């Protein structure tokens, strides 16, 4: 099929949209509601182009044979600008700190002030993990589509008609009142910042300024390959050392590594798994590192409670050890210790407030909040010299690092489970079947004559699919965000679709370069079990490192009575 784009003859296969064709030609067309993984609803009407003299949305229109397409005449440019003008929220400030996607589009089209008055009057909602300000919303609907089509949660939809149409849970309820898994995928897909995390920066700063408090910070595996993006570094830059240095300059007393928490999780989880296999416990066993997945299960899949591992998530384990083991070693009253986790995740904010976690972690900051904190302290992140994590809870293995990518927990667990069960050295550390960006991955490994089948899913729809086929497997890893924590709801907002892959590769690279790559070989893990915890799954570790689950309503946030 032959078409003409801006006077140039182009061959196209008839399946591509005008936007696809233009992207190939490096013609940049501003888009807002368009998302490569979602059905083009063509709501925002910003990606307009002229086809045979008529304005059409390039994201949803396939060109006719012989069509003449113009992407940049006055007619097109003015129409795009007018639609942006119509939805321009008054409250939106395009600051340097939060360079929202829409600000880039404003720059692209040369936006002026709107000629219209603001008509929206909504009360912002301050949820326990997610904050929404509908006055900023431009009704692009990406959050609604991601929540439903990708995450399978359907917590939010459109309410009201005409200019009263707005994004809200069914019946205009608050997000904190309905079944929401707090994964934050709506946040990283919002082009205007109308949805954001509940900030814990203020609370953290109060603790930092209190001389009586011993403030410990611990950083998740997935943020070391993404936090650099907030300072203009390319995606997938591994900035562990700079991050530790910046945190020290922020005033934290100790900087610990959640990778160690991950190593301990592996010890607990693989021991639990081997016990279940040996004693005929409920299989498949499902990992519980992801608080989004846990909420998903608690709301929608009560039947899976027996399948869930009882392990807490890595940062909760480490927080608990900080307040017990480390407090004792350092001679500090646990009540004076404040643990702050830096997480790629918004659901962790909710998790840290669960009563069953017994305040192992006090505050959770997202990767984005960390960036804001560092900028607020005027720290020149990029030129910082690398520094190392603090002892004793700062030594970790490559197995802990790969927790940040979908499939990583499973890979780390298998490395340890195989060696613990067989006493033999695992032949190949890389489990390639469960690496990469596929939504569902699977594989198998022979442990003592038993063929152990395992599978990995990330993203709500994929988790749902895997749950339907769960009987085939012995061991399942679930991550609520597509791609795992590297694409978490607390991560820097990106527009380049390659970003997630680059963050993931950086973690695997980090693992490859580590001298220790198996959790059970971590000397501090061995020391912890020897001196403090006893054996994995011991009574003490159960008390500190394991948890239980709360059944919740299918539609509402409320807990069900037992």
């Amino acid at each position: 099929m032959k078409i003409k784009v801006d006077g140039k003859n182009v061959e196209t296969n008839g399946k591509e949209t005008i936007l696809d064709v233009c992207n190939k030609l490096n013609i940049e067309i501003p888009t807002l509601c368009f998302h490569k993984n979602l059905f083009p609803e063509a709501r925002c009407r910003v990606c307009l182009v002229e086809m045979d003299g008529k304005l059409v949305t390039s994201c949803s229109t396939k060109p006719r044979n012989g069509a003449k397409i113009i992407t940049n005449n006055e007619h097109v440019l003015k129409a795009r600008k007018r639609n942006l003008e119509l939805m321009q929220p008054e409250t939106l400030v395009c600051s340097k700190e939060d360079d929202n996607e829409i600000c880039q589009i404003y720059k692209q089209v040369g936006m002026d002030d709107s000629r219209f008055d603001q008509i929206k009057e909504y009360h912002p909602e301050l949820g326990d993990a997610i904050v929404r300000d509908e006055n900023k919303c431009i009704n692009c609907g990406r959050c609604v589509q991601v929540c439903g089509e990708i995450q399978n949660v359907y917590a939010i939809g459109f309410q009201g008609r005409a200019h009263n149409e707005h994004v809200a849970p069914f019946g205009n309820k608050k997000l904190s009142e309905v079944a929401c898994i707090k994964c934050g995928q709506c946040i990283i897909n919002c082009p205007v910042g109308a949805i954001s995390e509940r900030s814990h920066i203020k609370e953290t700063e109060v603790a930092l300024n209190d001389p009586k408090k011993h403030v410990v910070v611990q950083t998740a595996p997935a943020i070391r390959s993404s936090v650099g993006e907030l300072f203009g570094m390319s995606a997938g830059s591994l900035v562990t050392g700079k991050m530790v240095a910046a945190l020290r300059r922020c005033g934290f007393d100790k900087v610990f590594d959640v990778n160690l928490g991950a190593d301990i999780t592996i010890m607990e989880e693989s021991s639990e798994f081997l016990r279940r296999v040996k004693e005929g416990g409920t299989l498949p066993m499902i990992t519980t590192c992801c608080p989004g997945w846990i909420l998903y299960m608690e709301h929608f899949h009560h039947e899976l409670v027996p399948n869930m591992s009882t392990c807490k998530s890595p940062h909760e384990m480490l927080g608990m050890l900080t307040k017990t083991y480390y407090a004792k070693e350092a001679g500090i009253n646990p009540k004076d210790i404040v643990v702050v986790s830096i997480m790629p995740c918004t659901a962790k904010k909710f998790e840290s407030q669960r009563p069953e976690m017994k305040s192992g972690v006090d505050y959770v900051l997202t990767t984005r909040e960390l960036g804001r904190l560092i900028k607020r302290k005027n720290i020149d992140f990029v030129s910082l010299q690398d520094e190392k994590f603090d002892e004793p809870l700062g030594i970790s293995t490559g197995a802990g690092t790969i927790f940040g990518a979908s499939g990583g927990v499973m890979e780390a667990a298998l490395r340890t489970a195989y060696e613990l069960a067989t006493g033999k050295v695992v032949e190949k550390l890389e489990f390639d079947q469960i690496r990469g960006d596929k939504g569902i991955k699977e594989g198998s490994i022979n442990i003592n004559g038993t063929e152990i089948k395992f599978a990995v899913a990330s993203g709500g729809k994929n988790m749902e699919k895997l749950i339907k086929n769960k009987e085939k497997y012995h061991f399942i890893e679930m991550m609520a965000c597509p791609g795992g924590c590297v694409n978490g709801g607390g991560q820097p907002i990106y527009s380049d679709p390659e970003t997630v892959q680059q963050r993931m590769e950086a973690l695997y690279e980090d693992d490859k370069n580590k001298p220790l790559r198996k959790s059970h070989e971590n000397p501090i893990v061995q020391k912890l079990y020897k001196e403090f915890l006893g054996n994995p799954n011991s009574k003490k570790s159960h008390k500190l490192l394991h948890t239980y689950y709360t059944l919740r309503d299918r539609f509402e946030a409320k807990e069900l009575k037992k």
Partner: protein
Amino acid sequence: MQINKKTNLKAWKRAQEIGPNKILKILDKKGLVGRGGAAFPTARKWGFAKDAKADRKFVICNADEGEPGTFKDKSIFQNNGETIVEGILIAAYTVGAKRCFVYLRGEYEYLRKKFEKQIKDVLKKAKTDITIEVVRGAGAYVCGEETAIIQSIMGYRGQSQYKPPYPPVEGLWGKPTVVNNVETLTCAAQALIFDDWDPNLRLFSVSGNVTKPGVYELPLGVSMKKLVEIVQPKNKLKAMSFGCFGGIMPIDYDMIINNETICKEDCSHGAYTIILIDEKQNIVDICLSIARFYTYESCGKCTPCREGTIRLLNLLKKVKKGQATKKDLKIMDEFARHIQETSLCGLGQTAGNHIITALEHFPKDFEVFRHEN
């Protein structure tokens, strides 16, 4: 009236005798086109659905008559319900559908009981396994649009969807679906058996400042003068409007009413809805009420319609208060055209017509408020 002629199951019997291909041939020859507004040839629409391969197909009778000033379908329901049912059956038989829906306008609830009884009776007499369900709309104007109807019947928000795929290929639950207006389906049954059936006879809904408003069956090509004589205006007429989306024109007694002439006036022909406005009215008031209608009825999906219609209304309110400047009128015209050009569905694509035409033909009506203050 031709439309009230009952077919008494003869059309259904004939349809079964001659088979789908012949039905399409006859409807094509008789020149039946959609009566909802778009005037798409019915035989072609049914042909697409018939040729589409699928395990299930559906027929929807669009009875969501929500266009202001349009009430022709109501009169068919009141006078010839059985023939509507027969038309639906013939459509279903032709395309191979087993399940049919009648999407009834929310406000027409009072017609439902009688019609459901008629469905029951006709289905019984017709001895068929085709089923017809009446689905009541919730009062949204946009649900008169075929893709929005489909969304609404499936239980989703009644919002227009991007086309293609068109419903005859991919409609209800992703299956081929024929959506036809009440009048179209009734005509289909009649066209099949009445040799003297005339495609040029159309239903006109006439209202406004007239003493005899109502539904009239008139041939296409009738002059405005003749029509005005029939409905008897109260005062000297000033303007005419072909439904809300048709815009507001100065009255033209010499106008011959048919597809071409109405389209030449740069407005959609709609379903032959004619509102006559006399000299006592100010056009700004008319625009205000039309703008209120659009502002309320926009579904909210796409930006220009959702955000634009309320802005047009606010500007009109400013005009009425005598506060509008020349610049405001310019913005009004600019955005009325913009909404039309960039909206997703037919509602938005016509939502600015009344303002564009009013500003063009009745500029003095916009000035008068400023002089008053």
